């Protein structure tokens, strides 16, 4: 299987799928495909990511089975990134939309950080899509990608909507700011603080996605 991306402002992902291989893409995202590509619908039943929540959530995807080529697109501006994940290597996506992934990869939603909510006994959770290798994965951001290789002990802060992808190894915590005395009593905002070593991808656009939602699949 090969992934490539074409175009500049509103790119597409080109998937070259061999016989007996499969790629999983968001529903309705295929722009064209070879007639030899077989399309099927996939229902994933995933455990809820928040601790303490019971039950499962279902998400729907399309499976493209080779041989042949196909292109998929979000129809939005942004950049596409392709990564090859080694066995058991994970990628955590927040504002990035999964454009396509090898059918061998594992997909689930997980909470990677919790933080106290102001004026509440409840906790807030930073939920991401976890994709685990082996296999290729491609995702799209909104806007331009800002890639940071963070040295050991080095820190950087970003609001959650700027966070595209987190690679394993990096430590993160979510901090809530605002409130008196510097802000109005009900004005709070959160920043994610990343501590190296590791890599984090941010973007300059404001994501319309929540934890890689609609474009990663279609929630039931």
């Amino acid at each position, binding site marked *: 299987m090969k992934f490539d991306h074409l175009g500049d402002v509103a790119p597409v992902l080109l998937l070259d799928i061999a016989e007996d291989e499969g790629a999983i893409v968001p529903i309705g995202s295929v722009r064209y495909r070879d007639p030899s590509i077989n399309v099927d619908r996939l229902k994933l039943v995933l455990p809820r990511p928040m601790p303490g929540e019971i039950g499962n959530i279902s998400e729907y995807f399309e499976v493209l089975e080779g041989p042949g080529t196909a292109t998929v697109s979000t129809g939005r501006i942004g950049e596409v990134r392709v990564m090859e994940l080694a066995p058991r290597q994970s990628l955590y996506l927040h504002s990035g939309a999964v454009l396509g992934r090898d059918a061998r990869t594992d997909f689930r939603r997980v909470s990677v950080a919790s933080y106290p909510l102001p004026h509440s006994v409840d906790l807030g959770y930073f939920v991401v899509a976890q994709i685990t290798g082996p296999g290729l994965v491609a995702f799209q951001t909104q806007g331009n990608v800002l890639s*940071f290789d963070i040295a050991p002990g080095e820190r950087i802060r970003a609001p959650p909507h700027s966070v595209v992808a987190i690679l394993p190894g990096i430590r993160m915590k979510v901090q809530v700011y605002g409130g008196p005395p510097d802000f109005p009593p009900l004005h709070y905002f959160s920043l994610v603080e990343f501590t190296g070593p590791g890599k984090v991808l941010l973007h300059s656009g404001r994501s319309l996605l929540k934890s890689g939602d609609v474009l990663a699949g279609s929630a039931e």
Partner: protein
Amino acid sequence: MKLEVQGGYVPNILCQLSPGEEVFCEAGILVYCDPTIRFHMRPFTRGGAGATLKRTVIGGIPYRLQVFSGPGYAAFSRCGPGEVRILELAPGETVEVAEHSLLLASASVKYDVFYVKGTGRVGRMVGFWMDRLTGPGTIAIHGHGNIQSFELPPTEVFDVDHGAVLLKHDSVRLEAFNQPIGQDLLGRAMSYEALRVRGPGKLLLQTLDPTHSER
């Protein structure tokens, strides 16, 4: 303060602040920052509670500005395709910037807002807000799409769509007007609404209307 434009078609501006230096901007446009950066709120309540409520509830203009203090770096973005321009304002120099286009301004820049009235016709252009920024200091603005720059002589007059206005000197006047364009098939009068711009002064236009739907 050092400013650097980063990125491509969705640019952001990276601001390097020395100890004690401050910039302010609308809340919610931060992309990333150094952990050493401190922030607080600067309320904007000119005209009292009633005027502030009107600006905030009807106009969507924030009643607070977020202030970032150095040392450290912080990056800001308007999250749309476009261009970023950095402008140095001389003492007393005033420019007026379309709402939600200001990326940041140095603490020495005086901030105000004003309303450009529409024609008041039902279902038509209702007007819009602009930020008024007075130097000395540095500002950075985000133009949606590409930015076109004009230097208008005193006699120059032309018409623009209201979503095209990005920045103007305070000497440039804007006035909404209604232009009849005939009748429809049922004999009803048709018209379009636009802004008449009169020089002299500097005018920047943007080629994408940020008030249009998501791109």
